[in-house]
């Protein structure tokens, strides 16, 4: 166990290294660059046994990711924004072929106008493509979640790929104190990858066939069943990790802050929840019974856990760092659907697009507007 003050990207690279991926296809894009640069350092300095594939595009990065997973080795990659958008075609091919690798996404706005700063439009737009998506708040959580996610994805009942989403710049480029676990402990927690099927001339299989209308839906239904199995497993693996390493993040799916007697709450994902804790503390001092729900797992969506967490609430302010143009914030859509008929006043606030600051003032306004029965809106 090493305690250090470190840039989150470096910490994430250390976290990835601890998982011992054997192949890392990657293509650089801000703000993901520092992660892959550190991994390149590790490999070229002989501190890590892995092949880095310097592909010519993110599209090829994810296509190579499929090849190496299918050949039976643990695989890692990282991207952001346009990179994830370029991978879009391959996202459902990775999940449809049940390749359980992990990708870090340093969340960044999608162009145009081109913008390198944080919002969640990249990952949330990819929400429906069969990847487990976990959003984290801190450097420590990024490391710990990466280790957990491999274990979840590689479980033979699941076999799905996963994304660890970290906010670009507001997390990726921030230095924080973090504990880097010992390799030995991680090896015990995360044994070597054992593929269920792989490309092996001794046992030939065909991966990636054409499926006609008579079988296609069964493939998709099985993916949904895998998602349903992943949901409790995320919690279970989280608890195991907590027991071994002494750190926990709510129940692994969502985290509650001062929710015991809360009447109103904020819900959001990623680093904004750190600021939200302060906003909640300040409003508590003003005598308002408010709390925070940090949603960690966007997919699979923890519907029952959310219902339980909001049981006593009168109102909920949903902070979306992305907007589904032509409708509303996607987290709002999901939250309202999950809480349908529960009689909770739910308001939608759009914030932090393209790196716009989400400060305490804005979050307090969202909560106060919800308390006062006002409509949601854009926190410009």
């Amino acid at each position, binding site marked *: 166990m090493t305690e250090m003050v470190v840039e989150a990207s470096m910490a994430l690279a250390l976290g990835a290294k601890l998982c011992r991926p054997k192949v890392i296809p990657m293509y650089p894009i801000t703000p993901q660059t520092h992660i892959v640069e550190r991994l390149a350092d590790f490999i070229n300095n002989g501190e890590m046994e892995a092949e880095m*594939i310097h*592909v*010519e595009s993110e*599209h090829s990065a994810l*296509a*190579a990711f*499929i090849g*190496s997973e299918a050949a039976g*080795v643990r695989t890692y990659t990282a991207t952001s924004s346009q990179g994830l958008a370029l991978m879009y075609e391959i996202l459902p091919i990775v999940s449809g072929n049940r390749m359980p690798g992990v990708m870090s996404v340093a969340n960044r706005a999608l162009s145009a106008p081109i913008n390198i700063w944080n919002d969640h439009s990249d990952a949330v737009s990819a929400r429906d493509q069969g990847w487990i998506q976990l959003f984290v708040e801190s450097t420590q959580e990024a490391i710990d979640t990466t280790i957990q996610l491999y274990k979840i994805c590689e479980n033979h009942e699941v076999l799905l790929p996963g994304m660890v989403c970290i906010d670009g710049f507001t997390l990726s480029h921030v230095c924080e104190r973090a504990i880097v676990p010992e390799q030995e402990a991680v090896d015990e927690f995360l044994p070597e990858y054992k593929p269920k099927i792989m490309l092996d001339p001794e046992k030939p299989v065909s*991966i990636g066939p054409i499926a006609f209308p008579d079988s296609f839906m069964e493939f998709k239904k099985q993916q949904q069943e895998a998602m349903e199995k992943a949901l409790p497993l995320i919690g279970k693996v989280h608890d195991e990790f907590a027991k071994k390493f002494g750190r926990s993040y709510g129940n692994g799916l969502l985290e509650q802050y001062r929710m015991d007697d809360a009447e109103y709450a904020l819900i959001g994902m990623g680093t904004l929840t750190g600021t939200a804790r302060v906003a909640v503390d300040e409003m508590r001092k003003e005598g308002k019974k408010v709390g925070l729900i940090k949603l960690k797992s966007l997919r699979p969506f923890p519907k029952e856990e959310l219902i339980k967490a909001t049981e006593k609430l009168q109102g909920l302010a949903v902070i979306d760092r992305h907007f589904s143009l032509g409708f509303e914030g996607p987290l709002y859509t999901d939250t309202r659907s999950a809480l349908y008929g529960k009689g909770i006043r739910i308001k939608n606030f759009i914030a932090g697009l393209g790196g716009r600051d989400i400060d305490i003032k804005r979050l307090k306004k969202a909560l106060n507007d919800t308390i006062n029965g006002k409509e949601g809106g854009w926190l410009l």
Partner: protein
Amino acid sequence: MIRGLPEEEFFASGHRACAGCGAPIAIRHILKAAGKNTIVVQATGCMEVVSSPYPQTAWEIPWIHAAFETAASTASGVWRALKMQGRENINVVAFGGDGATYDIGFGAISGAFERGENFLYVCNENGAYMNTGIQRSSATPFGASATTTPAGKKIPGKREFKKPVPFIMAAHGAPYVATATVADPNDIFNKAKKGLETKGPCYLEVFSPCPTGWHSDSAKSIEIARLAVETRIYPLFEIINGRVKITRDVPEPKPVEEYLKTQGRFKHLGSEDIKTIQQRVNETWEKLKKMEESGCKY
């Protein structure tokens, strides 16, 4: 069965390719050269569709298909994983059509060749996007009518010449590049073998008639492929470490017209266009000869 070639088949009969399709001939003989200890990575296209209708498969060796433009990138991932596992003795063969190779997957192939990945990339060159209904590719020959370059009243078919991909791959520094046709399975077998025995990224292109797309007689695919060589439309050569070697000389070529008239996709062509094609064929052949004679390296 061809005398002297291994009997064992790794691409089973019963696949759904059209009668007269050249591609299965190419695949069968390449796999005979590669043998059992091989992993195939396939691009989307006719051969993927006809060989893998779930839950059936024609592949008796491990096979993976990801997307249309990803044969080279997925093969890179497979190769690197094998390297990390100490399984470098396994052959990796990537198959793509001309659309997958010349057009949409070209960046990925260029990247893989620049990186020096260790696999044999095979392009089944049938001169159009056949799987989606005979649309033009950058391998479609000048003058051919394709569904997106139809022989219209104003524009009589495709107006551009084929992209010279084998040479472009040689210019990447590929240690072995070769062309073959389905008219000579022995040649396919031998060239595939060389490509597999050579370390690094190798490129083999097989010229492969498509009766459905070419509007040709499905009983004549082999003859047509042979005519392509005899008219110098499709020269057979190897480029070994940058040095060009013509593997089948054609001292007395037949006029291109003999080849063109076997296929409905050329039937609209006037004498001007036929002259243009003949000229281009002559020039390309001369260039090739000069490259061979000079011995200069790519």
